[in-house]
């Protein structure tokens, strides 16, 4: 059974639509620091954490390479394998810059993933509710919110 899990409900519909239309097998939406906001297709927490950390590191590395050659940044990367491809892209959202890591199989195409990624960015922008004023972070809330996020993502 494939699954979509989100930290905030507004992420679910755009992500599910993207996964269906692009034919993505695995998808992560995360912050540039690697904090996962939504995932589709992963079944093990350790895989999500590893993929998020690696995806975030790849984007950071390529941003530094871009800086070396005088580019602002690379918006998207694609790694093509024999059976799977990985599409990694940055996007601007009302919640700031986000990263998407998409794994697709031979039943999809990078062109399709790129095409529907544009729709995902638009859909997320439209679905995002206004951000609530931030409360001061206290240790008890932090732990509770962290546990809630983990429960949302991994179903614990």
């Amino acid at each position: 059974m494939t699954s979509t899990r989100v930290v905030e409900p507004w992420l679910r519909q755009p992500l599910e639509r993207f996964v269906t239309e692009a034919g993505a097998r695995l998808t992560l939406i995360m912050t540039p620091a690697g904090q996962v906001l939504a995932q589709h297709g992963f079944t093990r927490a350790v895989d999500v954490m590893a993929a998020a950390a690696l995806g975030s590191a790849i984007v950071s590395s390529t941003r530094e390479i871009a800086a070396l050659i005088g580019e602002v940044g690379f918006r998207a990367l694609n790694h093509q394998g024999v059976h799977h491809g990985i599409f990694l892209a940055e996007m601007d959202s009302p919640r700031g810059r986000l990263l998407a890591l998409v794994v697709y199989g031979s039943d999809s195409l990078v062109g399709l993933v790129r095409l529907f990624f544009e729709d995902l960015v638009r859909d997320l922008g439209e679905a995002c509710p206004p951000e609530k004023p931030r409360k001061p972070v206290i240790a008890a809330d932090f732990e509770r919110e962290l546990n809630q996020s983990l429960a949302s993502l991994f179903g614990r």
Partner: protein
Amino acid sequence: MTERLRRSLDRVTRVRGVRGALVVTRDDGLVVADALMEGVRGDAVAALAASLASRLGSAARASGLGAPHFYHLQATEGTLLAVPGPSGVLVVVVADHELNVGLARLEMLRVAEAIW
């Protein structure tokens, strides 16, 4: 884009009813070269036509028909044509209903030849 390929794409677009012609990578669905009228989304056509060709190819082979030579999709507002070319590309045409399909196909085959 080589001059020969550009000229052959331009010839396709001169066929009455053609709104755009593209050379697309079959495995990726990305645009290699295009000649499009305003309003035709080249990246969307490329990705979806390559995906469609891939699935129709699978269906044809599964039906024992072999590899397709020509794709012709008639829709309510127009027509989509595709011809597999060499080096893993697909020549795609978007047109309206007044298209002479035979003439368009001939010009599409010329585009495929220009890729050699």
